[in-house]
């Protein structure tokens, strides 16, 4: 008779480096059941949003997650613009294109981040180092466009906060040109490597039926053969003006999820290139003053899937209710079926294959040496950051 043992992973995940708790019930090597316990990171953002006015909320929601710090504010402004009659009716054309560019750059850095972590999880640290090495210029590009690597503060109701400068365009184009050979390399590394194939094929399978039943979204759904993508189905930004493809795989295993994400990198590069070519000149903000009573829904295809925001307004300057549903909320729950039936060693990568949302925004800013203590206040840090942005812009421009 087999003996059932609980293997706890968490409450602080040793690899995913975020508080979540998986209890694996195992018999021998086989995972027979799993309990997913979350809530360690609950900050009550929906409640906080009820106390902030409409213009403050983008700053709040972009701090939900350091990776999706354009998807959440984007979905929120779409929800408010839904009350006002729809994004395409009020937001200036140029702003639509810039919103699309920021959103796709985010997808690129997020997929590269996942690819690196996935490599790390299966013990393939070379992929990790290389993926993050190519992610770094994307973050530098963000810093150049928005002034920050994360939490870009680009979105506001009715438009965006800052324009992309003419002199930044060649830098973005160069970044994309350098990125494509890197993605080629990753594609080759994953598709041609028999070890990776042996490690990822046929494990952590989420069938199409299960994907429907668990209502999963994004690459997790598309790898299981569900043909859904908010960018195409309920277009926002400039997506309906551009030509691009939705990547679908049928197998539902981790290999399929990896392929979907790698191929989406190409599509993102394609979308940004087209945006840069077609972006018209003009205003970037519609200067919205009042939000009428009503309710609106905003949906954005975040790197992990559909990000949903619902805003209800009663005509005052604060929302009555603001509901947020991040894509991982649906995807993480599906681990209940994807991880069960596999082995413990596969569970590590299976639980990470849906790309659960990490907060990796911490950066080291001050070095304290015993011989030379340096105390910096908030303003010093801002000055330091601005200096770095200036320097970076100089270097990047100088390179081309």
């Amino acid at each position: 008779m087999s003996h059932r043992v609980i293997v706890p992973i968490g409450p602080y995940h040793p690899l995913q480096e975020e508080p979540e708790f998986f209890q694996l019930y195992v018999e021998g090597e086989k995972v027979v059941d799993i309990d997913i316990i979350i809530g360690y990171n609950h900050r009550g953002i929906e409640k906080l949003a009820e106390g902030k006015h409409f213009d403050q909320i983008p700053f709040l929601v972009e701090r939900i997650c350091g990776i999706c710090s354009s998807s959440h504010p984007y979905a929120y402004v779409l929800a408010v613009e839904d009350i006002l009659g729809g994004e395409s009716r009020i937001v200036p054309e140029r702003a639509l294109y810039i919103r699309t560019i920021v959103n796709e750059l985010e997808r690129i850095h997020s997929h590269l981040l996942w690819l690196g972590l996935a490599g790390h999880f299966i013990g393939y640290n070379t992929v990790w180092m290389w993926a993050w090495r190519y992610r770094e210029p994307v973050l530098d590009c963000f810093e150049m466009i928005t002034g920050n690597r994360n939490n870009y503060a680009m979105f506001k109701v009715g438009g965006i906060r800052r324009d992309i400068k003419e002199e930044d365009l060649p830098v973005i184009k160069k970044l994309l040109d350098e990125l494509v050979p890197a993605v080629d390399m990753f594609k080759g590394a994953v598709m041609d490597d028999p070890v990776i194939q042996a490690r990822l094929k046929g494990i952590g399978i989420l069938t199409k039926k299960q994907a429907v039943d668990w209502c999963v979204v994004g690459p997790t759904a598309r790898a299981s053969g569900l043909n859904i993508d908010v960018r195409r189905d309920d277009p926002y930004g400039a997506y309906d003006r551009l030509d691009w493809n939705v990547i679908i795989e049928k197998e539902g295993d981790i290999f399929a999820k990896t392929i979907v994400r790698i191929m989406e990198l190409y599509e993102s590069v394609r979308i940004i290139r087209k945006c840069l070519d077609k972006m018209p000149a003009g205003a970037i903000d519609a200067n919205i003053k009042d939000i009428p009573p009503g309710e609106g829904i905003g949906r954005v295809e975040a790197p992990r899937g559909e990000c949903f925001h619902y805003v209800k307004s009663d005509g005052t300057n604060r929302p009555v209710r603001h509901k947020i549903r991040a894509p991982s909320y649906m995807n993480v729950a599906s681990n209940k079926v994807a991880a069960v039936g596999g082995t413990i060693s596969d569970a590590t990568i299976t639980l990470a294959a849906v790309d659960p949302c990490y907060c990796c925004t911490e950066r080291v800013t001050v070095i304290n040496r015993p011989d030379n203590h340096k105390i910096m206040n908030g303003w010093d840090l801002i000055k330091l950051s601005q200096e770095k942005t200036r320097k970076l812009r100089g270097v990047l421009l100088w390179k081309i």
Partner: protein
Amino acid sequence: MQTKDKIKERLAGKIKDWKEVSARRIYLGINKEDIYGVVEILFKEIGLRFSTASGVDTPSGFEILYHFSFDQAGEFYSLRVLINDKKNPVIDSLTPLFAGAEWIEREIWEMLGINFKNHPNLKRLLLADDWPEGKYPLRSNHES
């Protein structure tokens, strides 16, 4: 036949009000007793994808919006249900229909105190273990 017409036909008599805010945003009100049957038709038969649900504490009762997406046409349907009984709010659980509803029902239960009948696993999802029983942070009378 268009999905909108199909839904109207299949749910005839159960839709209290039908509001198309725009071509892609449809709000429909139904009685709370009908929720299980209506969602069974929408999810299993018509093939809508469940996106999420959101609960609001209003003066006339608890309002739950069940959001469904019809991805082929980009339409988004929000089912509005009002639970008048503020003392003992109960509604049928959708989790027996599809697994994707489990977490959001647990969340609404702990945040607003709405009970989901036939939910297989109604326990806390996000709130801390030492959060006091019977305190619901998203109710309008909650003092933070």
